[in-house]
């Protein structure tokens, strides 16, 4: 369902052509990371820590090196000098190079179960694995801490001796000069919280905990690296950001970026988890030592142990409202664990928490805390699902206490164009009200719920959407097609969405544009595919390329017709028009370019730091089996302001995927550690993401409030749909059985243990 208030009529934008990479992907021809083959290639394996926290007293690799077939073993020592404290920008997150290096290969200390300790290269995979058992590592096991609140205590085991609290708050009383696990304390304040609470007729305050959730991409991390004798490194890897990998490799391997080429392979999902480096530097060190290309890929267990989950959190949210529903004040306390090294997405969580609402008096206090778990990575709207879950759950309770319809309550407080956000900047044109109106009037919301133990819940969500830097080039071919060279790796259909925007600009069809993702030597610097930025920023660049081509085609036609260029126009039909009804199609002119001064090629690099924020509103019906605690999702409607849906099918797919992941977080996904801090459920069997038959068809409603900061009105669409599900489901479970859950996942076990007699 698309409700359209398009200011312009488009020919290509808004249609649903077949994606250019589709056939290769469904026929298995597309080359993913694991498909990489190189002459003389060796196979690697990584030894990982069995402990949650321990000092590495010694590593003896001699027995492993002596195993026939083993060509090299590397440890942190092979990095040579320790990387400095410089910052590597990973788009949605950033990291300090020295911490990144210590995460890639543990230096002196292991900080979590599964932390990489050594890498092996051998003539085959099985030998490499056999060699792992021959590496003798002596550990001194230390006490560990996984719970974020425990990690904040003065008595907690300290993970990083050099870590001191950085404070971003005038009123923080935290000491900044002693060892700690609190990497950052910040406080965002607007108005006068005390005054706001004093004005409230009703106040609700609740505590929440959310667990670690993994992105759960199907393709494990992988890397093949070749460090040649000239000191040049080539890495084939599936990544969300070829350039961010290049920057990280440069920092960790201490090689200039010009000597590193990253070849991005097709990527089997990332969701934020493939922004950083894990195996790439190890493969490179092994390659330098052996002189051969070395290929590494992770087992699923390693993926769970050592890559990406999002932060587990402890949160407290307090909100006050007047009888008429006006929110007067709001406070959020957000403690996010970052895993073993600083850098949780707490900051984004803090800025998103109250973003759907106009609340004059608010304080958001946030903590970034290291624990003995995998370094967290970005995950779809990083930081937002947790903080907005807490806020939305409180809003639903306020609605109940105020006896105001929960969507109506949200509408009365909705952020609009000009509303100052949490850091005081006014929102641009946003679609929060349009989304909430659409929720209220959706037939799902009016439908009757029947049956026993069924319930309905609603929640909204906000996400900024990124802009940042993108580069592309384009060349006009003599047959009237255009080659489009992209620096953005294609996770969610961006070849299609970018080619469509160039085709629209040129008045061509999607088939006339040939998009191609290339390596870092072949295109200008481009930021990661993440932050829902690619179709937005890449689209800007495609538009810019199109305008340059139009201009040059006009000039060329003028030259051929021997008229002034300002007498020639480029029509939206893709034809070039001159005086006296002279006209040439794009293809005709393309065929004459070579003979009239040469072919046309253009390039553009743009940095777009304007945001096109997105809002989503979800309605869910579900049924709880009181005897088993199992929740069945009966109906799900996801409404979203998508700006302009360039390719509506992919927008719908993004929304459905986000909802599916959000349902997983709400109901079953969790990291389970044992008493020794070892991850127990590092498999898709026991890390329970929803499977297809756990989900109903997820209905989507695309609301198009074009982003005025983009030529085609694009807002990012991929992230915000993961934000509302937890709160909507929590509310629906309450509606069904009368119990509110403040800890996720709301698994059958949790429901049963909470509601069972005795």
């Amino acid at each position, binding site marked *: 369902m698309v409700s359209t208030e398009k200011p312009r009529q488009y020919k290509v934008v808004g249609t649903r052509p077949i994606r250019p990479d589709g056939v290769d992907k469904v026929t298995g021809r597309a080359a993913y990371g694991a498909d990489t083959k190189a002459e003389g290639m060796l196979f690697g394996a990584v030894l990982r820590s069995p402990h949650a926290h321990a000092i590495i007293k010694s590593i003896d690799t001699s027995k492993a090196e002596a195993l026939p077939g083993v060509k090299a073993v590397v440890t942190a020592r092979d990095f040579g000098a320790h990387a400095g404290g410089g910052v590597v920008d990973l788009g949605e997150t950033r990291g300090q190079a020295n911490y990144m290096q210590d995460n890639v290969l543990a230096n002196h200390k292991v900080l979590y179960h599964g932390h990489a300790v050594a890498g092996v290269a051998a003539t085959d995979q099985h030998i490499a694995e056999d060699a792992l058992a021959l590496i003798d590592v002596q550990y001194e096991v230390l006490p560990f801490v996984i719970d974020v609140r425990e990690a904040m205590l003065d008595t907690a085991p300290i993970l990083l001796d050099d870590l001191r609290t950085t404070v971003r708050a005038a009123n923080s009383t935290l000491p900044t000069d002693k060892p700690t696990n609190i990497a950052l304390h910040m406080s965002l304040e607007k108005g006068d919280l005390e005054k706001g609470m004093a004005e409230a007729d009703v106040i609700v305050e609740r505590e929440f905990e959310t667990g670690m959730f993994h992105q759960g991409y199907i393709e494990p991390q992988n890397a093949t690296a070749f460090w040649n004798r000239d000191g040049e490194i080539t890495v084939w890897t599936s990544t969300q950001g070829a350039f961010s990998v290049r920057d990280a490799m440069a920092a960790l391997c201490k090689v200039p970026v010009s000597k590193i080429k990253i070849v991005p392979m097709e990527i089997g999902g990332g969701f934020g988890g493939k922004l950083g480096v894990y195996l790439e530097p190890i493969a490179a060190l092994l390659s330098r030592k052996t002189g051969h290309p070395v290929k590494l890929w992770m087992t699923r267990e390693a993926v769970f142990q050592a890559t990406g989950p999002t932060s587990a959190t402890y949160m407290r949210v307090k909100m006050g409202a007047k009888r008429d529903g006006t929110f007067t004040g709001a406070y959020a306390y957000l403690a996010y664990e970052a895993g073993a090294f600083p850098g949780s997405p707490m900051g984004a969580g803090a800025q998103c928490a109250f973003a759907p609402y106009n609340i004059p008096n608010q304080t958001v206090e946030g903590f970034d805390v290291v624990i003995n778990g995998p370094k967290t990575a970005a995950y779809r709207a990083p930081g937002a699902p947790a903080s907005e879950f807490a806020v939305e759950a409180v809003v639903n309770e306020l609605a109940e206490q105020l006896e105001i319809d929960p969507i109506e309550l949200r509408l009365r407080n909705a952020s609009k164009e000009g509303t100052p956000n949490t850091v005081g900047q006014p929102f641009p044109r946003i679609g929060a009200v349009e989304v909430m109106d659409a929720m209220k009037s959706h037939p799902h919301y009016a439908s009757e719920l029947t049956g026993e133990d069924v319930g309905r819940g609603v929640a909204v969500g906000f996400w900024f959407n990124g802009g940042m830097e993108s580069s592309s080039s384009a060349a006009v071919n003599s047959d009237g097609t255009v080659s489009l060279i992209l620096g953005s790796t294609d996770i969610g259909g961006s070849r299609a969405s970018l080619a469509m925007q160039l085709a629209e600009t040129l008045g061509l069809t999607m088939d006339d544009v040939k998009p191609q993702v290339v390596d870092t030597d072949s295109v200008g610097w481009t930021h990661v595919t993440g932050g829902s930025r690619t179709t937005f920023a890449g689209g800007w660049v495609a538009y810019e390329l199109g305008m340059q081509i139009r201009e040059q085609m006009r000039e060329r036609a003028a030259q051929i017709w021997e008229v002034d260029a300002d007498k020639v126009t480029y029509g939206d039909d893709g034809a070039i028009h001159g005086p006296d009804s002279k006209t040439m199609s794009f293809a005709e002119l393309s065929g004459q370019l070579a003979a009239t001064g040469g072919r046309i090629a253009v390039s553009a690099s743009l940095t777009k730091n304007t945001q096109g924020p997105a809002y989503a509103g979800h309605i869910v019906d579900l049924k709880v089996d009181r005897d088993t605690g199992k929740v069945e999702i009966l109906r799900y409607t996801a409404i979203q302001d998508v700006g302009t849906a360039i390719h509506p099918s992919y927008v719908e797919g993004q929304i459905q995927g986000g909802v599916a992941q959000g349902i997983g977080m709400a109901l079953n996904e969790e990291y389970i550690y044992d008493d020794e801090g070892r991850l127990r459920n590092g498999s898709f069997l026991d890390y*329970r993401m929803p*499977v297809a*038959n756990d989900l109903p068809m997820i209905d989507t409603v695309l609301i198009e409030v074009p982003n005025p900061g983009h030529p085609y009105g694009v807002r990012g669409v991929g992230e915000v749909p993961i934000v509302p599900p937890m709160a909507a489901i929590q509310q629906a479970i309450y509606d069904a059985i009368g119990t509110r859950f403040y800890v996720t996942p709301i698994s059958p076990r949790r429901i049963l243990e909470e509601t*069972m007699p005795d």
Partner: protein
Amino acid sequence: MQPVKYKRATSVAEAVSLLQGGGEFARPLAGGTDVIVQARERRRDIDLFVDIKHIPELMAISHDANGVTIGAAVPLHLVYGDAKIVSQWPAVTEAAHVIGGTAIQGRATLGGNLCNSSPAADSIPAMMVLDAVAHIAGPNGKRDVSVREFCTAPGRNVLALGEFVVSISLPKPPAGSGGAWQRFIPRNEMDIAVVNAGVWVQLDGANVTDARFALGAVAPTPIMVPAAAEALIGKPLSDATIAAAGDAAKAAAKPIDDMRGSVKQRKHLAKVLTERTLRHAIERARGQA
């Protein structure tokens, strides 16, 4: 994965001699959906796979007056694809239908599920309440063991070196009886049972003349619950007697706390599933389902 040798047996005798010759690191290979995964993850030391799928007896389903004999290597989709098995032993096909998914069922077998001897194996409680018998061949000839007595500990069973299961027999159920099987998993597929339950009842009008109950994932092996049968046999069916059977199941369940379920949750589910499965079995005994 370590290097593993592969040998294909074409007769029972050949399989026995290959297994015996291979010693403790030789394993029969049926569908491989347990054992290949275990080998790849290095959870089991194996140096020889003896493929048993090319032995005719292992791949046959034969019906006769006494019941059915299912070759130990018959893939599950052929088990639930057999209309007679579905109509007479639906408890087994209910389990076969949910093991893994379609792809797994194209390979996985009842013999493999039994011999892997997981406490949570889905088909075992169904086979236990149906009086299934495993026909075993080995260096000392053939022997029969009731499926109820087959498992001895997690991953362990009565098979001695060189022995393997040729087939499993299910005796014909008497008229007026019915069996059913259910499990609880948090998702709708691709999970290991938190608890599973098999039930078989024989009715004479409103009275229960015989009953058998089994539970999985609540003890080191799948278990029979005689106390539940006692709570029911000789009594008229009522909500109270059904609840009494459920309570007996709960009392008999001696589960552990692990990442897949807590003691409290599993004991409760033992009761819930026993009662639900019993009601289904009763309907079947009455010819209503």
